[in-house]
């Protein structure tokens, strides 16, 4: 294992770099290979995606979006994992990885057009090395393995990160993909964002064992880390990526975190969980504790915090404006354009009939 993994190895069973109070349990400065600007950038990105996430929820409440699935509380996992990869490495998300997409440079307003119901697809996966959101649970996990097999065939050296929740680990596709990756030593990082809740079903009802332990059954290592610790996520992901790039195969990271918001804007979590539980997790907030450490280290001061807050505000505002300006799509184009790359004559004719049926009968 690379140096960086030592940082998260020191504490078991849940490995963290930052303690809840913001003090340090290791020496990430040396091991993670991050510059002072690099450390601050992790903070900047967490603040930015949290603000955009809140804005998206506001937009949903205002009727501007059909649905929103908040990732509040999971910012460390989004930012730590994405920033630990090379930009050429691929990410296969589930449906809550808006923060990861922002870190990859996908325009947040464009991405929200999906949740505004204007399109099914807002970006070219090959341009951002970011696969489409996967709504059916765990279907993206074998895709990541297949992509990684392709990387090996091509000898491209690209590593693939696939992320999913604790609920997905109950699905057959998850098992089949983990098994396949183990057999073929595919260069894949399996990142479980264990946020404790799969809609209303809590972790103990999802699985009786520890998720990280399951990797052993597939013949590769697994690690359970503090998923609200951006440095732990960064360290574990970087170590797993280095390992995969060396040809040593897959790695399972169970990042323990907590879904602070509802499953989606259609869900009411007060029906199944307590305020006390929420409060306990608030004290482990990934941004607050990291900010305390950055300040203590002299990497960030009040002016820096204010500046980053303003930037995030401005990003959210631009996102809102641009989203509202997004034109209503032409139905024929929105629905027929991307079903086939090469539409057949019959399909084209169906499109024409569909489009003319929408024209006013006069």
């Amino acid at each position, binding site marked *: 294992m690379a140096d960086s993994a030592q940082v998260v190895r020191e504490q078991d069973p849940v490995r963290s770099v930052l303690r809840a109070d913001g003090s340090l349990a290791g020496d990430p400065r040396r091991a993670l290979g991050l510059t002072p600007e690099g450390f601050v950038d992790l903070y900047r990105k967490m603040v930015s995606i949290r603000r955009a996430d809140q804005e998206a929820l506001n937009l949903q409440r205002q009727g501007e979006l059909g649905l929103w699935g908040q990732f509040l509380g999971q910012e460390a996992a989004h930012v730590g994992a994405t920033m630990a990869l090379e930009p050429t490495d*691929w990410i*296969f998300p589930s449906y809550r990885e808006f923060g990861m997409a922002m870190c990859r440079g996908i325009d947040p307003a464009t991405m929200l057009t999906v949740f505004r119901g204007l*399109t*099914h*697809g*807002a*970006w*070219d*996966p*090959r*341009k951002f090395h970011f*696969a*489409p*959101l*996967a709504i*059916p649970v765990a*279907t993206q*996990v*074998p*895709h*990541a*393995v*297949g*992509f*990684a*097999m*392709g*990387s*090996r*065939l*091509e000898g491209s050296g690209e590593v693939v990160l696939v992320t999913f929740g604790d609920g997905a680990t109950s699905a*057959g*596709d998850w098992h*089949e*993909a983990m*098994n*396949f990756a183990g*057999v*073929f030593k595919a260069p894949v990082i399996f990142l479980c964002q264990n946020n404790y809740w799969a809609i209303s079903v809590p972790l103990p009802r999802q699985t009786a064992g520890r998720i990280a332990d399951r990797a052993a059954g597939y013949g590769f290592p697994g690690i359970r880390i503090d998923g609200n610790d951006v440095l732990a996520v960064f360290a574990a992901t970087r170590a797993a990526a280095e390992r995969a790039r060396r040809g040593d195969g897959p790695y399972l990271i169970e990042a323990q975190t907590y879904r602070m918001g509802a499953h989606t804007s259609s869900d009411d979590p007060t029906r199944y969980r307590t305020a006390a539980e929420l409060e306990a997790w608030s004290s482990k907030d990934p941004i607050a504790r990291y900010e305390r450490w950055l300040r203590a280290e002299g990497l960030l001061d009040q002016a820096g915090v204010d500046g980053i807050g303003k930037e995030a505000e401005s990003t959210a505002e631009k996102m809102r404006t641009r989203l509202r300006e997004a034109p209503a799509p032409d139905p024929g184009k929105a629905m027929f354009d*991307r*079903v*086939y*790359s*090469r539409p*057949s*004559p*019959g*399909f084209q004719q169906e499109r024409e009939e569909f489009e003319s049926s929408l024209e006013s009968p006069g």
Partner: protein
Amino acid sequence: MARQTVIEAIRQAMDEEMERDPSVFVIGEDVGRRGGVFLATDGLHKKYGEMRVIDSPLAESCIVGVAIGAAVNGMRPIAEIQFADFIAPAMNQIIEEAARFCYRTAGDFNLPMVIRAPWGGGVHGALYHSQSIEATFSHIPGLKVVAPGTPADARGLLKSAVRDPDPVLYLEHKRTYRLIRGEVPDGDGLVPIGKADVKREGKDLSLIAYGLMLQYCLEAAEKLAQDGVSAEVLDLRTIKPMDEAAVIATAKKTGKVLVVHEDNRFAGIAGEVIAVIMEHAFDSLDAPVMRLTAPDVPAMPFNHVLEEAFMPNVDKILAKARELAAY
């Protein structure tokens, strides 16, 4: 020109495409050293190695899922489902992912992949080695479904499927594998997806079929000719997108149409063919369009009597065609 069986033509198509394009690879159960349970990939493992002829763990959903991921990476996977009857575990990946992947993207993205599945009865395969799946998958937007019936079409359509930018379900009828022998052209011999083929010209009535039933229809047409009935035989070759123009043309030409398939009747391909004829060739019809299909029961036990009873065959086609001719 060479004479080949269907299975030889399929093997040659894969070999040629793998030779031509290093991004083409095969993945499936027992496709490696074993060469596939029907020997479709015989010799490919030795020639291209285990990274391009991948023996997968026994998990159909993962075979298709891995193929999807590889296609996202710019590869051109050929995923083999050992028997069409075992495709059900992969339905989520085929329907919700492969067929909808391009739809969920923007820009220049596409998903080139082929899923091969041996289908159909007549080989004493019993319930779980005899089923027909074409109607189920033809209903899914985003998928193309082809079902060749001759060696030349088997090779040409498989090569076209590998080169197609979108997911293609390639159905190979296992009874035809070694039963049907025919001329396969030199050169690429590509057969376009979406084009039907008149396999026998006729003027009194039309038989429309694909796969094994094409062969039976050709045999029936030969016998009908002895009765003085001139039967045209249209091979759909591609089920989706269906060559509607060819269906309409033959219906207008003969005015009498019998559609034959081995899949179950309800919501089967015959229903779609008949709808196209009713919409576009109603005025040319001299008789109600007829269909001959398997009954709406889930395939059959392997006893010869039961298998014969379940499947359409030359005699059943002849009886139905004579009824149509006399109308």
